[in-house]
């Protein structure tokens, strides 16, 4: 195949936000008539790269060439005028307007100072025909399926002059047949000569549709590959930022000892999950957890780890299956009932779902215990201070005092405060969703040490991390997830980073 000139080439793009280097000399090329997937874990820089291209952000250095000419879009509108069309993750259409109105919102054809409805309908039908869609465009949008709404969203941004189409997670709320319908449209647009950037967390879909893959990791360019030359296993390795050979097959000694302990049939079962599932979130799964065991949940971003944890802790209501705590059926309908049953849960989203920045460290720590005790069994301020000080000491939380605002603490210390909140309730099951994300290396090690300590004291811990290394290091058993399905459980000698990767890459 001859190397033609790319439609788009982004060269050595760097973008710095206060405190983070979101992109560091990233290269990206896009050719005519191809679907190009951008892959990467959390914080890889996918969305920043797209935002630079679509004029939401401007790069600090580096250049963008569109058909050989340098461009620097300073707004989404400017990018669109250049022929760069974007469909964002959340469909931002108006469900109560007609399909035609949605397509032409803000640029309705005008005739004699009034909207020309006939012309608008005619042109809407024409655009949709390009997407192989023949529907009544005067019907309101919400009367159609999500898949059709997704196509309408594409129709809305697609102009005759469009050169590049960016699809950000277009399939996240579609079922299989709907995905196929969408892919058909994507392929036909590609064959017309459009260059398409496709962002998704679904590995299988990437292999179905993408011609080329660019991998990013922590804001850095890892590589650009033709899909057929990149086995799934290599892709996963690259997303995690290592070469395949670097992954350790070793089983850690300490961990093996523990896995033997957990194989001990006498160890009491603290949590049993049977056939728990929620449509559109995670496929039904079984799970069990013993006293003193660390169960790791491993999978790529968007594989369903968090969804699993949220179902168990009653944040999202399951539509099937049951949960047993210590062998007894537990009706878990809310985080409150999960807490009463003896569970604790630290969310991965510390800022929005965890810490109360305006409350003091003391209040942050005491909150769950107080909620467990109920309103009237008030923990006196003196007792609160006692508990908080003890936690601050045992978890080595760096704060001037228990009465400082939690917002003044560093990320790692806020994470410890959240942990302390649940430890204060002395749970029998503790679910930790990415407790090591976004904190410095020292704090990461401390938190992993702590997890092992807790399990030694008999607590059952479910540990989620996108770093396979961490999961392997801490867990005595690992449940592996891929594309919202629990695909396997690894234990004993089978636990290693490499085996997790093989499990994720395996299957169809």
């Amino acid at each position, binding site marked *: 195949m001859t190397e033609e000139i790319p439609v788009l080439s982004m060269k050595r793009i760097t973008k710095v936000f206060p405190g983070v280097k979101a992109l560091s000399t990233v290269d990206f090329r896009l050719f005519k008539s191809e679907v190009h997937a951008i892959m990467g874990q959390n914080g890889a820089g996918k969305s920043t790269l797209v935002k630079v291209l679509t004029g939401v952000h401007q790069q600090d250095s580096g250049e963008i060439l569109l058909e050989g000419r340098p461009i620097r879009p300073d707004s989404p509108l400017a990018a669109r005028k250049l022929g760069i069309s974007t469909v964002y993750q959340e469909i931002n259409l108006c469900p109560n307007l007609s399909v035609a109105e949605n397509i032409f919102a803000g640029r309705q054809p005008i005739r004699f100072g009034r909207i020309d409805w006939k012309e608008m309908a005619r042109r809407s039908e024409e655009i949709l025909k390009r997407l192989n869609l023949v529907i009544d465009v005067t019907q309101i949008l919400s009367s159609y399926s999500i898949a059709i709404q997704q196509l309408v969203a594409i129709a809305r941004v697609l102009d005759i002059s469009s050169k590049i189409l960016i699809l950000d997670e277009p399939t996240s709320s579609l079922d299989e047949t709907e995905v196929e319908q969408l892919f058909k449209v994507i392929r036909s647009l590609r064959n017309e000569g459009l260059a398409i950037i496709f962002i998704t967390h679904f590995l299988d879909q990437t292999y179905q549709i993408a011609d080329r893959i660019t991998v990013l990791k922590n804001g850095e360019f890892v590589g650009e590959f033709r899909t057929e030359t990149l086995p799934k296993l290599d892709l996963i390795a690259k997303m995690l930022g290592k070469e395949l050979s670097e992954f350790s097959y070793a089983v850690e000694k300490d961990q093996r000892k523990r896995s033997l302990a957990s194989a001990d049939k006498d160890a009491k079962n603290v949590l049993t999950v049977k056939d728990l599932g929620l449509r559109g979130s995670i496929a039904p799964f079984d799970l069990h957890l013993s006293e003193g065991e660390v169960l790791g949940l491993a999978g790529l971003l968007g594989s369903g780890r968090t969804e699993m944890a949220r179902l168990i*802790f009653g*944040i999202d209501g399951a539509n099937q299956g049951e949960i047993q705590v210590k062998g007894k059926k537990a009706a878990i309908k*809310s*985080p*409150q009932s*999960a*807490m*009463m049953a003896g569970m604790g*849960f630290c*969310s991965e989203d510390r800022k*929005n*779902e*965890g*810490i*109360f*920045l*305006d*409350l003091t460290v003391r*209040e942050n720590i*005491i*909150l*769950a215990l*107080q*909620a*467990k*005790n*109920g*309103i*009237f069994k*008030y*923990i006196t301020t003196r007792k609160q201070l006692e508990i908080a000080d003890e936690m601050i000491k045992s978890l080595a939380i760096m704060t001037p005092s228990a009465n400082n605002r939690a917002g003044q603490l560093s990320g790692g210390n806020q994470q410890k405060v959240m942990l302390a*909140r649940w430890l204060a*309730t002395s749970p029998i099951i503790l679910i930790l969703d990415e407790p090591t994300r976004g904190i410095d290396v020292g704090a990461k090690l401390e938190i992993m040490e702590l997890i092992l300590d807790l399990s030694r004291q008999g607590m059952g811990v479910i540990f989620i991390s996108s770093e396979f290394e961490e999961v392997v290091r801490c867990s005595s058993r690992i449940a592996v997830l891929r594309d919202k399905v629990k695909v396997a459980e690894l234990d004993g000698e089978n636990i290693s980073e490499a085996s997790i990767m093989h499990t994720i890459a395996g299957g169809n």
Partner: protein
Amino acid sequence: MISWKSLRRSNILWPLIALGVLLLFNLFFTPHFFRLEIKEGHLFGNLIDILKNGAPIMLLSIGMTLVIATHGIDISVGSVVAVSAGAVAILIGGDLAGNPKYPIAVAMIAALLVCTAAGMWNGMLVSRVRMQPIIATLILFVAGRGIAMLFTNSLQLWLYVKSFAILGQGYVLGLPFDIYIVAFVLLFTYLFTRRTAVGMFIEAVGINPTAARLSGINANNILFWVYTFSGLCAGIAGLIVCSTVMNADGNNAGRLFELDAILAVVLGGTSLNGGKFYLFGSVVGALIIQTLTTTIYAFGVPADVAPVVKAFVVWAVCLLQSQRFRSRIARVFVRREASA
């Protein structure tokens, strides 16, 4: 004892300063403003009037504080005042000889129950139906006056039962009776929120409802009871309003009180974004509003123009409370000193 440092850090300082400045202004410019007289063993004077007339807004602001702390708002309280007045009036009856239809205690309790139910309705809409607070309480804001009219058969009902007048017109130990009611409700609410976990839960829900739910707090229950309590406070205020004028007027009782109550809370230092709340601050806020009103009238400003003056003072107080504004002003002064 309260140290200067803790006072400076607490949010009650600025409202107190604003109130102090207002009173100081009156000291110099309004003759006899501070004069207190004793007539028939009761205290009389502008200061007493401020306390007495401010009682309904103070009560409303106590309930409103908790609602606003959850990042909500209750605009129905003015209408609920009318509902309370209508309910108690119809149960006592307009007998010219002064004989109540039902015992006064029964009538008052029934009226309070009706208002509590009104609060529960708001709480249900906000916490279960998940309606936006301003829309949810807009329903009773509109319907409340209709309900009050329904009670009184669309008439203004005059009351002649003397013992009911004690509530809004009576004196105990030389001070107006309704002051004691306010003091009791304030103290009760303070103890109930600060000597139990309720206050912390309310603040947690106001700061971050998702995190509160994930911490095992039943955020829905908190919301429900906060609106219910606001309804009860409005009910008590309604009884006082009715007793003060011995009349139930569905159209005008409590009209625009909701705005004063919200204002009092904001003046008192509680943010409309929810979170930390200050009950005593709100009551001081209500006193500022009442003092302002009294001052304006004492100056003979025409009633039609009074709101303009009021708005200006409120604007100034709000600016004074803004940390950002204060630091900007401070910076201007520092720069001047540096250049001098």
